[in-house]
Every structure is written in structure tokens, then in C-alpha cells.
């Protein structure tokens, strides 16, 4: 319980630090939000009126405290550009990015687990070398390049998946899976490589344990040894990294959502930065930071559950 309280305190401190830094840094970005709203022909009077309306003339610390006070009550302010409440804008788009993240990590695990197990089982052999080479190739392709390549391969050439656009999971589930597949694949590519390599090295270490030798001596089948006895103890690092990667997938979605025209949080953030919509940038970064911290918090909790040595305070 004490550990939980301590973790929560650290979480609150981290969120505060993130929000303060984001507010200050975005406020220091060059570009006048009032001019972005009114355009080049704006009269000085109109510019002054907009600045006053948005409270841009008030001192920065005062603006931060006011924003923070409202944020605690769930009010992240209104977009400078659209007038839409920031919370509403984020809630509209969060399911989209969440779906992409889950699909990307799911897809990565789905492919990486068998590849990692196979690679470890055949360590040093031709299959292992092929898989290792493939993961190196995946690691070296940036996600925006993977996005463009997958569009040309799976949309233009094979015509299997749509190149752009989005359907909501709640409205058209099958179309939604189709429209999310290529963005998820682009986000998953690097993770497939990371997960495969991580699992491979952990599995190799596990397969050298005495209890595995014992299992083999008892005549247990290879597949049972690999999947029942070796995979679980080899998955702890994979689980931790998958959690961290989930947060990274959310930040990578800024680029991928742009390319695939996906209306997610990443795209919202990108457009807000370009439009100097500081209130929106601030809100999105805060929510993403909180999500990132919570995911890691949950991973820690699951990790404790899965590994009895941690639960019982032993190593």
C-alpha cells in the first residue's frame, strides 16, 4: 500500500512537471496565435481584441495557474482556432489512436512471439539468421517510410486495404479494421523487430536453465517445453517493453496518422502545433503524458502479478 502511495505521488509530480514544461515551451514557440486566427490582413485593433479575448496578454505564470486550476476539474480550455472544448476534441479522437495502438502492439506481438520462439529454438541456424536479418531490416526502416511503402504495396498494387481514410469501430467494425490495418502495420513494424529480438535473447537464456533440461529428460514434447515452460518466464522483459512501446506508438502516431489521414490524437496534436493552437497542444500533451504514465503503472502491476519472485520479494 505504501509502495502504491509512493508511486501515485511520483505520478502526480511527473504530470505536474510535464504540464508546466509543455505550457512554458509551447508559449515560447515563435508565432502569434492571434495572427494565425485573423490572417495577414488583420487590423491592429482586431489583433488586440483577439489577444485580449484569449488572455494572451496576461503574465505566463498566471495563465499557467489558471489553466492548471481548470484542468484539475477536467476543463482543459477551448481551442484557440475552433472554439471546441479541448477535452471534447481529445475524447473524440482518443478511441481512434487507442485502436491503432492496440492493433499495432497486438500485431507486433502476434508476429514477434512465434518468430522470437523459433529464432531462439533454432539459435545460430539458418532460420535464426534469416529472422535476425529481417528484424534488422525492419529496425532500419522509419515508420513514415514503412507507411508509404505499405500504401504502394497493399493499396495501389494489391488493392487489399484502403490507402487513406477511417471508419469508426463502433459504426462499421469490419471497415474500421480494414482502414486501421496499414497504419497499425506501419506502427507495428519496428516493434515486431524489437519484440522478436528481445524474446529471442530471453528465450535462449531460459532454454539453458536446468528445469528445461529436466523437462526434456522427462520426454516432454518440444512445443510444450517452448510454449509452456520457457515462454512465460521469458516474457517479463517483453511485457515491460510492450508497455513502454505502447506509449511510443502513441507518439509515433503523429506521423502515421498524417500520412493515412487518420483522425486521431496524433493528427490533432500536429495540426494544433502548426496552427499555434497552444491550448490544444497543452491539453493533448498532458493527456498523452498521463496515458503514458498510467500504462507503465499498469505494466508494473501486471509484472508483479506474473512474476512470483517480485510478489514474494525474492529474486
Amino acid at each position, binding site marked *: 500500500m505504501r509502495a502504491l502511495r509512493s508511486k501515485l505521488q511520483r505520478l502526480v509530480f511527473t504530470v505536474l512537471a510535464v504540464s508546466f514544461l509543455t505550457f512554458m515551451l509551447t508559449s515560447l*514557440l*515563435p*508565432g*502569434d496565435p492571434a*495572427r*494565425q*486566427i*485573423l*490572417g*495577414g*490582413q*488583420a*487590423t*491592429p*485593433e*482586431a489583433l488586440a*481584441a*483577439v489577444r485580449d*479575448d484569449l488572455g494572451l496578454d496576461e503574465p505566463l505564470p498566471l495563465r499557467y495557474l489558471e489553466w492548471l486550476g481548470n484542468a484539475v476539474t477536467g476543463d482543459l480550455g477551448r481551442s484557440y*482556432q*475552433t*472554439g*471546441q472544448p479541448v477535452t471534447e*476534441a481529445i475524447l*473524440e479522437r482518443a478511441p481512434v489512436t487507442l485502436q491503432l495502438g492496440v492493433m499495432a502492439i497486438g500485431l507486433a506481438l*502476434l508476429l514477434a512471439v512465434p518468430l522470437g520462439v523459433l529464432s531462439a529454438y533454432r539459435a545460430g541456424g539458418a532460420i535464426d539468421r534469416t529472422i535476425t536479418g529481417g528484424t534488422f531490416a525492419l529496425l532500419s526502416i522509419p515508420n513514415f517510410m514503412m*507507411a*508509404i511503402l505499405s*500504401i*504502394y504495396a*497493399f*493499396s*495501389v498494387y494489391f*488493392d*487489399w*486495404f*484502403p*490507402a*487513406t*481514410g*477511417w471508419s469508426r469501430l463502433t459504426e462499421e467494425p*469490419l*471497415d474500421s*479494421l*480494414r482502414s486501421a*490495418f496499414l497504419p497499425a502495420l506501419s506502427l507495428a513494424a519496428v516493434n515486431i523487430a524489437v519484440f522478436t529480438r528481445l524474446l529471442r535473447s530471453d528465450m535462449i537464456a531460459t532454454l539453458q536453465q536446468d528445469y528445461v533440461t529436466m523437462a526434456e529428460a522427462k520426454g516432454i514434447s518440444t*512445443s*510444450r517445453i517452448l510454449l509452456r515452460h520457457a515462454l512465460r518466464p521469458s516474457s517479463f522483459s517483453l511485457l515491460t517493453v510492450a508497455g513502454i512501446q505502447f506509449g511510443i506508438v502513441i507518439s509515433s502516431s503523429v506521423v502515421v496518422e*498524417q*500520412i*493515412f*489521414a*487518420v*483522425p486521431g490524437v496524433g*493528427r*490533432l496534436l500536429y*495540426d494544433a502545433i502548426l*496552427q*499555434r493552437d497552444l491550448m490544444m497542444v497543452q491539453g493533448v500533451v498532458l493527456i498523452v503524458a498521463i496515458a503514458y504514465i498510467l500504462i507503465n503503472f499498469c505494466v508494473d502491476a501486471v509484472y508483479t502479478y506474473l512474476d512470483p519472485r517480485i510478489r514474494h520479494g525474492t529474486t
Partner: protein
Amino acid sequence: MESRRRGLVAMALCLVLATAGCAGGSAGGGDNSIVVGLESETTGWLPGQHLLTNYPSLNVAYAIYDPLLRTDENGELRPYLAKSLVPNEDLTEWTLTLRPGVKFHDGTPLNAQALKTIFDEYLTAETSNLLGPLRFVESMDIVDDLTVRYHLNQPDASFPAVLEGPAGWPFSPTAAAEMGPDEFAANPVGTGPFKFVSWTRNSELVVERNENYWQEGLPHLDKITFQVITDENARIASLQSGDVDAMQTLRQSSVRQVRELDDFESHDFIGNLAGGQLFNTNKPPLDDPRIRRALAYAINQKAILDLLGGSDLSPLATQWYQPESRWYSERVAQAWPHNNPAKARQLVQEYTNDPNRSDGKPVGAPVVLEHNIIPDPSVVEMGLGYKAMWEAVGFVHNMHQVEVAVITDTNASGDFMINTSRFSNEDDPCITLRNAFGDPAVTPTNYSNFTHPVLEENLRTLCTTTDFDTRYQAVENIMMLFTEFVPHTWTGHTPTAVGARPELENIGGWRFPDGTMGNGHPMTVVTWGQVRLAE
């Protein structure tokens, strides 16, 4: 156990293949529906509150709103939604009469009272972004149920052009009042050929046929989905894969790709818009015309255009109007200081050895240039091209990569020497040139701060007469002045393209209600209300 695992793998594969198997088919999702890929969109659709001037957004705006006036194929402004617009003798009063029987999408009538409410409560509100374009309009009166009169505080021959833009797109004041500005901006109600259905910001906007449209037989399409695809490659790939039926591009490299696509048509247009380097004529040493001329003489425009993607696509610019424009002047094209490094070197030497040189440096000290460019790869390459050319004639060139927002801010504050910029548009020359070169004291968009008595006189003529020959002469005089005083340099005019399935007809063939041909699809702005899908 083994078979269960195999079953799971098979299920996963089936799911992927099943989702993939649903691919293909028409992009529009219906017989008479289409999907259009756009480069960007606006932040809201309420004139006065949101910037509705970027070209991709105009595709949507002209589907939902009808402009009071539009430009015909000869470049003349003619009534479109309006029935007539008549000025008084000195162009200070403009009387506009509306067509009878036109209704907004919510069923309320378009009449003089609606125009008056829109003008008073939205277009001229304290924070309206149309206060600049409407700065010469003192008031608007209702004459009768279908007639209003605009009172201007000075003669303005370009006033009709203001009514072609967002200040002349009537929207339902009833709906705007009921919803409030923010909600209306996300749910626009106009008189256009299509009614707004839904909008997912920065993703897609859907409109459907307006059954009660005032132009009989229009629109031809039942539904249009405008999809925002910012990535150029993805937008072109979406056209190739059939996810969109048409797409637009304002990028040179993409225009080339669209033209090379088999099975699709490229509807091209060369815009007046042209790139170049803006000089702050208040800032030494650029306050000296010799230096500005030297900079122009040093540039090999064709080489710069090749760095940007190809001189074969983009005509070299020498003035604010492209060669096909009615305002283009061959005389100006000849007079522009074309590449002549020897002459450039001579002018730099003259300035360097001038004891009264404007930058206050001693005789013989090098002339230093501070040049801001945006960090786009092709623009950086272009910047390096300028560096080589300008340093070859004796300048010291410092290049700074800055964000677009910094360019915008320094343009406005005057704290720059040379900024990468873009010049000209498809507007009336009075509006375009007055905004760019009006009295710097009262014109916040005169970023070069250039002014000259000949410029002032010709601007006055241009903006106070409707006679084309007189106006043409005024534009030519201004352009000739620029060849001597060089407030900025040029690269090339902008090639644009709308790529579309061949079944989409009449992309650029829209007409006025009386049958007069319109101005096509300037800068990829298509009048979708008159586009049809072939059987």
C-alpha cells in the same frame, strides 16, 4: 492442443484476409457519390471567424456556399448568386440585388435583411478577419426586400471582387443565431448546391445534394466526401488505389506525378501565385535599389526552378501575372533584370565603394545578407542555390532556417532583411497590389515597405476606374516600376493539378446561370456543384 493452436493461427489469418477481401469498389460508396482528396482544410466554416481563403478549402466552401459574384472565363466579375451589382458614378456606392426565391438549406429566405444581419453581426464584428477586405465599406443599407446598398468611404473599383470572397458568401443568419458561432462553424448552412451532413475535423467532411437548389438541374452528384490527406504521396496513391475519385495538388513534384498517371486525367492550371525572395526595403543594405537589382541580376531563375522540381512545369515569373493572364505584359517580361552576373558584380562594387553606403560600413567592407528560409528540403536546396549565386557576385550570404511562423511574424514586424515568400493570387489586381504595396503606414501586409509616387498614382488609378485598358496600363506601369526598384525577386508561377477518374466530367467547365463560361478550376478550386459522373 496442436490443432487448437493451428486453429488460432488460421483464424488470425482469416481475419486479415477477410478484412482485406472487403477492399476495392467505388470510392464514393454509391452510384452517384464521390470522394475528393484535399491537401488541407480550414478550422471552421463561418465567414469572418475562420480563414476561408486557402484553395483546398474553397472546394468545400463553393459546395456549401454560393458567392454573390464570380469570375468568368475572361476574368470579368459577374453576378452569380446576386442578380446584379451596380455602382454609382464615383464607385462609392454599390447597389446589389438578389435573385428572388433563393433559400438557405434551413428553408429560410435569402433576402436583404439576411445580408444586413450577416454584415452587421458577423462580417464587421470586432474580431472579424474580414475587417481588412471590408475596410472601405462604411455601412450597408436595405433598399428593398431583395436589394442592399454598400456605402464606401472611398472609390473602389475592386469592390465586386470582395464579394467573390467570404464576405460575399451568404449564410443563414437564423441558423447562426440559433447555434452560436462555434457550433455554426462546424455545421454550416448556406445556399449552395450541397447541404452539409457531417464533419470530422481534419479528416472528412460530407455534403449531400440540395434538393431545393435555386439552379434547376444542379447539382449532378448526390453526395461528396471531402477527405483531408495532407501527405502528397498518400493523396496520389489514394487516387491510384481508387480510395478517392479526385484529388488536388499545388505541389510541382506532385503535378508531375499526376500527369504521368495512366487511367486518370490531369486537369492543369498555372496560377499567378509565384515564389520569390522578399526584400525589406527599409533595411540597409536593401534600402538601396542598386543592391536589390544586383540580387536580381545574380539569379539564374531557371537553375533555381530546377532545384525546386523542374523549370519545364513552372513558367519563369517576371511579374505578378502569369503569361496566360489578361494582366500579363511582355514589355515587363523583357524589362525584368534577367541573369547577368557581370552587371550584378558591378552594382555590388559600386555600393561597396560608395562612401555614403546605406549600411554605414566602411568603403570596401563586404555586403552582408541575412536570408530566412523555411526548413523544407527543396527550399533549403533553393537557398543554397541563392547562396552560390549571390556569393559569386560578391555578397556575403547568411542563410537561416526558420519556421513558417517566424517568416509570418517577421514579415509583420519588419525585423528581417530577406524572407522566402510567395506573391500574387487570382484576385483583382487592385486588391492584390494594394494589399502588397499600399501605404506602409496603414497597410500591414506591405511587408517589403516599398512605396513610390509612381506606384501610389497607379494604384489610385487601378482602384478607381472600371475601364480595363486604363487598369491594364496602371498594372503595367507598376510592374515596370518593379523591374527598376525590385522589391522582391521571382522563381516561377505555380503549376497546379486536379487528378481525377476520367468518368468525372466538367471539372473545369462550370457556367453562370445565364450560360456564360466560368473561370474553370483556378488553383484547383473545382465547382463541384456542376461536376457530373459519366454513365
